[in-house]
């Protein structure tokens, strides 16, 4: 499991929080992309479709980083849950 200076005591709760914060940021981006698709064409654009293409192109760094983050956050959570299950099984024995 990874070590972070932000919260040395990593628990399932903190890992769930990490997944959620990624989900929220991605949701905000999707809201903006939706708005770009329904509002007026941006300055220099003729149609909303151009807004969407522009949004996706300038969002590439964001999308790459958030995808990497979500993959890591979900992996951490799965590992933590598996470790907890194994621990509780061991206790029962």
């Amino acid at each position, binding site marked *: 499991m990874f*070590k972070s*200076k932000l919260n040395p005591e990593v628990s399932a709760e903190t890992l769930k*929080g*990490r997944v959620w914060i990624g989900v929220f940021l991605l949701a905000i981006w999707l809201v903006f992309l939706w708005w*770009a698709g329904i*509002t007026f*064409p941006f300055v220099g654009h003729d149609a909303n479709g151009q807004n969407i293409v522009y949004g996706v192109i300038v969002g590439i760094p964001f999308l790459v*980083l958030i995808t990497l983050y979500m993959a890591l956050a979900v992996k951490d959570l799965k590992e933590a849950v598996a470790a907890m299950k194994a621990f509780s099984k061991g206790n029962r024995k």
Partner: protein
Amino acid sequence: MYFGPHLRIESWMFEIVLYLFFILVFWAGTKIIGREKTSLFLWGSLIWTLTVENAMVIIGAYDYFAYANYYCWADKLIPGFSGWSCMVFFVPLSISIGWFIFGLSAFIISDRLLPQGNIWIKAVVASVMMVSLDMLMDPISVVNEWWRWTVAGFYFRGVSVGNYIGWFFMLFFFAGIYERSVIEKGSFAWLRPIEGLIFRRNTKDLSDTDSQTLKKIFYFRTVAFIPVMLFVTILASQPLKQIGFNRYAPFNSVFPTTYDQKYPASAKPADMAPAVIPDGDPRKVEGPRCEIAKGANVPTQPAGGASHVQK
């Protein structure tokens, strides 16, 4: 309210989204780094952004008065409503709240991507992420007049490119200060002598410091870094000046600025008259939407390319 082939996203819609996500991100933040550290990030980012944003409005880079005093709903004028629910001097509170949402999320994400990385490299990753998101948000704001640019400069899709440089360095420095002060409980060598005089202690290592003093030191560093951030941003924007400004300000500043002197209203297209400040209150400055509500003849394509303005 205009519902044509394209939908106008009103500033209050933007505010509702920001306040909603503020609750969610704050909740997630408390789960990850705890309530105290999340609150510190919030208060620090409010100090940081409200100071910088108000300074930018006053020096005439942009303003939030496009709706001022002529907000229309169902074809009726709502007097005294600026389009924003809460203003802190000349800046809507929701703008700083939005910065907190993006800033905290990007900070936590960069920490997971580089858990043992250098704080400044993590700050770069967080800032790149934030600018990438802002590059989608800002053009939406321009066409919907949430805020309006009042500075001559190098523009891309209606937004001053200097804005993106500013956003980058705002999070870069803030993330660095926060991590060094609150997480690592360390210090900045150049600030130590001043902090020694103010806080009457050696601030090199803050690990044994009580939370109240830590807060004060963090807030002090936040304020102390504002001039540094502004200086670096201005320095980094210089190459744009070499490329050359490609546009006059879309709107005149409500504050007299050096830009107005350098690029006077007379040099701008004739349909952009200088702003008049009623009662000395910039929030009462009228703009094109008010004229639309009154049925006045307004240009369909005002300077700056805001071609969405409909009669």
